[in-house]
C-alpha cells in the first residue's frame, strides 16, 4: 500500500487544493483528511457520508455541586489552572472545572476527600467514512478545544488502511494539518512518503526546514513542491536547492494562477477546472508516482 501525506509546516500553502487534485488524477485511492481541526477537503470532494462514529477519548473532571464541600483540594492539586473558585461572603463557596482547560489527568478526582468529582469519558469529536467520485474518504471533526487530535488522526488513518485493504485500493492520499506537533506526527507516522508544499517566502522556508527535520526524525522519504513560485523566483530556487541538499527530492513548482481560487469557489479540484496550475499539478503527480515506485514500501506499521 502506498501512503502519501501532504504537509507544509506553515498553513495555507495549498495542501488541500493539491490533495484534491491528486485524488482526482489517481482515482484509485482512499482519501484521508487529517486536518481534523479545520477539515476543508470535503468542500472540494463533496463526500456523501455513509458511516459516522463518535470519537471518545480521555475523561473530563466534573464536580457535583451538591457534594462539594469547597475544601479546595482540587484547586491545589490541579496543574492546569482548570479549577475556578466562586466566593461568597469572602469565603470559597463552590469550585467548578473549566472543561476547556481540564486535561483529564484525574488527579483531582483521586484526591477529592468527598468523592464529589465525576470523571465521565469525553466525546472529543466524530469521524466519517464517505464516498466521493474518486474513491472512499475518511475524515473527521474534532470538537472545539478538544484534546487528543493526534489520537483522532491515528483513528482515521487506521480506518483508511483497513478500507484500502478491503477494497484493494493501492493508494492512500492524506491531507495533513499544518504545524509540526501532535496531529502532524500522527499524520506522517507509517506513511511511505511525505510531500511538503512550500510557498517561496522567508516564512515558508523557515517552516519547511522544521518540517524536514521532522520527516528526517521519523525517517520518511520526502518530496518538495513550490506553490506560487513566481511570487519570489529567487527563494523558489533556494527551496529547490535546499530540498536536494536536505536529502529530499524536488517534485516541481506551481505557478501563481487565479484558477486555483476559482476552482475552490466552484468546489472542484484544480485539475478539473483547468489552467496553467492544473498542468503544473499534473506534472508533479507524475513525479510523485515515479518517486513512489522507487521507494521500497515497508509493511504497514501499526500506529
Amino acid at each position, binding site marked *: 500500500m502506498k501512503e502519501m501525506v501532504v504537509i*507544509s*509546516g*506553515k*498553513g*495555507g500553502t495549498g495542501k488541500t487544493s493539491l490533495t484534491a487534485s491528486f485524488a482526482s488524477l489517481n482515482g484509485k485511492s482512499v482519501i484521508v483528511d487529517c486536518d*481534523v*481541526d*479545520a477539515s*476543508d477537503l470535503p*468542500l472540494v470532494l463533496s463526500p456523501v457520508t455513509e458511516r459516522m462514529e463518535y470519537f471518545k477519548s480521555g475523561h473530563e473532571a466534573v464536580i457535583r455541586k451538591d457534594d462539594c464541600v469547597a475544601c479546595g483540594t482540587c484547586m491545589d*492539586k490541579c*496543574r*492546569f489552572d482548570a479549577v*475556578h473558585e*466562586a*466566593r*461568597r*461572603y*469572602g469565603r470559597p463557596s463552590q469550585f467548578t472545572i473549566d472543561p*476547556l*482547560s481540564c*486535561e*483529564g*489527568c*484525574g*488527579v483531582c478526582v*483521586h*484526591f477529592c476527600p468527598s468523592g464529589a468529582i465525576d470523571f465521565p469519558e469525553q466525546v472529543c469529536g466524530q469521524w466519517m467514512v464517505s464516498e466521493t467520485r474518486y474513491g472512499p474518504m475518511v475524515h473527521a471533526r*474534532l470538537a*472545539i*478545544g*478538544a*484534546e487528543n487530535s*493526534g489520537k483522532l488522526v491515528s483513528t482515521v488513518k487506521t480506518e483508511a488502511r483497513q478500507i484500502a485493504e478491503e477494497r484493494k485500493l493501492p493508494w492512500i492520499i492524506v491531507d495533513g*494539518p*499544518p*504545524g*509540526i*506537533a*501532535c*496531529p*502532524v*506526527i500522527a499524520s506522517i507516522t507509517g506513511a511511505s512518503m511525505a510531500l511538503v508544499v512550500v510557498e*517561496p*517566502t*522567508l*516564512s*515558508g522556508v*523557515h517552516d519547511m526546514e*522544521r518540517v524536514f527535520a*521532522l520527516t528526517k*526524525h521519523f525517517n520518511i522519504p520526502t518530496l518538495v513542491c513550490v506553490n*506560487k513560485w513566481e*511570487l*519570489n523566483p529567487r*527563494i523558489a530556487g533556494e527551496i529547490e536547492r535546499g530540498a536536494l541538499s536536505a536529502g529530499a527530492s524536488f517534485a516541481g513548482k506551481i505557478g501563481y494562477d487565479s484558477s486555483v*481560487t*476559482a476552482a*475552490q*469557489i466552484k468546489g472542484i479540484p484544480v485539475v478539473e477546472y483547468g489552467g496553467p496550475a492544473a498542468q503544473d499539478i499534473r506534472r508533479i503527480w507524475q513525479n510523485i508516482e515515479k518517486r513512489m515506485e522507487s521507494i521500497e514500501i515497508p509493511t504497514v506499521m501499526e500506529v
Partner: protein
Amino acid sequence: MILAIASGKGGTGKTTVAANLAVCLPEPVHLLDCDVEEPNCHIFLNPEIKSTERFTLPFPTVDENRCNGCGECSNICQYNAIVSLKSKPLVFPELCHGCGGCSEVCPEEAITEAKREIGTISSGTWRHITFVQGLLDVGQSLSPPLIRAVKQHCGTNGITIIDCPPGTSCPVIAAVTKSDYVVLVSESSPFGLHDLDLAVDTMRKLDLNFGVVINRVSSLDHRVADYCRNAQIPILLEIPDDRKAAEAYSQGLLLVESVPGFRELFERLYNRILSESSQNRKPTPENKRDFEDIA
C-alpha cells in the same frame, strides 16, 4: 490590553496582522509569538534576542529501592506514561503531561520529578517592541504548556499582541484564553469562510469578544463579508488582494513600511480595535466573582 490574533485556517495572515499592527502601536508594546510550532514574527521584526531559556516539563523518575510495585502510579496515569510491571514501573516521558498524579499517589514516596526539555523561550527587543517567542523542539508533540509559558510574559501595561497557532484545538485555546479581544484573520475564499465559521464557534464557546480581518479581498468571492454581516460580527479591516503585498511578505518585509497605503490601513485597524473592544465588554471572571460576592 491583551489582543490575540487567531484564525481557523492557517496561512490567512495572522503573523502579518500581528507584526504590522505591533509596529503601528504606541509603546509599550509586547509581541508574543505563541505559534510555537512554526513561529514567524521574528522574520519580519529581526529582534535583538537578549535572553534564551530552555523550557522544561516535569516527568517522573522512580527510585527502585523504594518502589514496592503496588501499581498506584500507573492506575492514576491517564496518558499511559507510567506503566507498572511487577518490578519498577516503566516511564514514557514523551507521553507525560506533567500532572504530578503519580508522585502524589505513591505510598512509598518513590517517585520524584525530573525535567525534560521540550522547547525554547527567547525574548528581546526591536524598536519599541518587547518580543517573546516560543519554539517547540522538532519531534515534540505537546505544545500547550510551552504556549502557556510564553504567555507569562504578557506586558503589565500597554498592549500585548499574541500571535496564535491556527486551528480550533487545545493549542489555540491555550493561546487565546484570558485575552481581552481576539482578531480573527480570515481570507476571502471558501476554505477561509468554512474555517472562520469554526473559529467563530470557538470564540463564542470561550465567551471572548472578537472581530474579523478579511485578507486577500477580491471581487471573486464576497461570502466571508456577507457571513460577518449576517452574523453581526464586526469587520475590522479588509486587506485587498495585492500582488505587491504578497511579494513584500515573501521577502520578510513589513507591509506598513514597504507597500504604500498599508500604514494607514493598520492605523485604522488599531483605532477600530480600540473602539470595538471597549464596547459590549463581556464580564471577566473577576467581575463575575464580584457579582457573586454582592449576591
